[in-house]
């Protein structure tokens, strides 16, 4: 598991208060009841802080699943 994947997994687990049985890799806004718009805001904030990047509101709207977040971070120019 890459550093990006591990950190994202930890962030989602903490912000969404997921238990150990939940598969974070398959988590989406639709499948996780605690993943509402406020939680999305917290996730975006945590990612910004953890990876020292800025996420525009338009980009944040698309970060609605673990997979999409990983895809976004892997392609971010400021993340090595």
């Amino acid at each position, binding site marked *: 598991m890459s550093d990006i994947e591990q950190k994202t997994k930890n962030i989602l687990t903490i912000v969404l208060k997921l238990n150990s049985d939940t598969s974070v890799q398959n988590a989406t806004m639709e499948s996780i009841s605690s993943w509402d718009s406020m939680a999305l805001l917290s996730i975006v*904030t945590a990612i*910004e*802080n953890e990876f020292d990047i800025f996420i525009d509101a338009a980009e944040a709207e698309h970060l609605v699943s673990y997979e999409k977040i990983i895809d976004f971070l892997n392609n971010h120019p400021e993340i090595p």
Partner: protein
Amino acid sequence: MSLSFLEAANIVSQENTLVNREFVLAASGQTEKLEMFVKALSICRGFNSIYSSLPFNTLQQYVALSDSVSNVTDKKHIFLLFPWDLVPEFDWRLGVSENDFDLEVQNHQAVKFCEKIQNFKDKRILYFKADVLPISLNSSEQKELYCQLEMLMYKAGARIISSNSFSLSSYLANGNPYSGKELSKISDVIVDEVDGEQYQAKKLLVTDFDNVLWKGVIGEDGVEGIYCQNEGVGYVHYIFQSYLLKLKKAGVLLAGVTRNDSELAELPFKKNKTLLTRNDFVEILASYEAKSSQIELLAENLNLNLDSIVFVDDNPLEIEEVKLQLPKVRTILFPPQNEMFPQMMADLQKQFVITNVTNEDKKRTELYRSRKQSSVPSNRKGADLFSYLATLNMRISPKLCSERDYERPLQLINKTNQFNLNGNRLTEQELQLLLKDGSKLFSFGLKDKFGDHGQVISLFVDQKLCITHFVMSCRVFQRKAEYACLIWLIKFLDAEDLTFDFHLTKYNTPFKNFIDEKYFSSFKDTRRENKSLLNSALFLEENEGILDLFKIELDN
């Protein structure tokens, strides 16, 4: 102190028995983003923050009602204010109003708001100097109002927070005005204000010497290589000294704590290189022990509480170490760039509230000096830095240097005095000869969360596994980097024993302390020269845990 989100979450998840401190976080915007950081940073300072916050956009109402509700104003409040809290028309979320701009009316509005804030008895104010909505067609008039607001905030005792802490995107999207990247910094200031002790007048200012009292490192650059005159590179250090002198004359005690040999530390005073004299200091502790233990000793010697002490140092690591071990001591980082110097001085100025100076104040240093017994530096072991170092995310990059790639290691060997195996210098030709004879030159880079320190350790190993040169930059002392590099080297060379060509010099006490440890023993080699032998097995066994503090990144 700065934390990432996951570090903060980890701290908050652990149970603790710390005392609770209650307060109200009063802001017009959403503050949820800050919660994790405020809680974690409070725990780092030795308490739990228990706070309530206001519903979104209700600050004006809350403040307006304050004079009629005394049980509200008695509570401790931390106000997080933006320009639009004083002049609501500045609020980006409102859009530009068609109404005429009237400087006087808007200013009056802001003054009234500040008067209401004064009803709160125990309050701290953070004022975010955010960019504002263009509400006037006359930009200079708007700028005038903007400056007046800042003045008002200064008068109200606010701490001014820079504009990059504001995120317009986040504010427009969800009412959170704080930049995600700056959350830890903002929260650190909030916790600082909750801690609250720092605005009580301090009695003792403890200052580091190298790159604080003067520009340069006395142990490396020598007394002629340090600068603190009212010109050139030492200018800000001269200004710093002149302020310390003023403080001393007003009754504030000055003390020096420096990683140096005592004689060396006092040399600039003897040579009249400094504005301050030796007698302006009530004590100078020169030692290689942790700064926290030195400050603790000073407090004991002078019979002062830790919360009456301000400590100034240019090294973020030393600052963090003191913060961690002595959370009551107010720490101030002497900035690396002159542009940040005015802010540091303003911060320093706030610590010492001096209204009138008595004759006793003027003589206080002399009174204390005559009272104290001695100024023997602490030989107590420094604070256990391990847990702190683990948070630094340190990465070491070892490199075996070639005949074409030795510039920085050679420079390091030729300019380092303190952590230096024997003080032996090398010319380029000598270095090339050593390489041709089969000696290996290693260079180690170090990065941590503070940034890239560059190549900071150089060492030469000859064919008989004797280390002939070993130096480390003083910028990275106290990080255990020398241990990590040696462990890596032992493994890389598969060396059961390593010998060290150690010689004591005038300046290399830090290396002597290193080689005095139990893993080393002295012997005479075949030429009857003194050498030190490292018991690699014992060294590895007892220090292998140090590698957990570092990630090794092979430099290709």
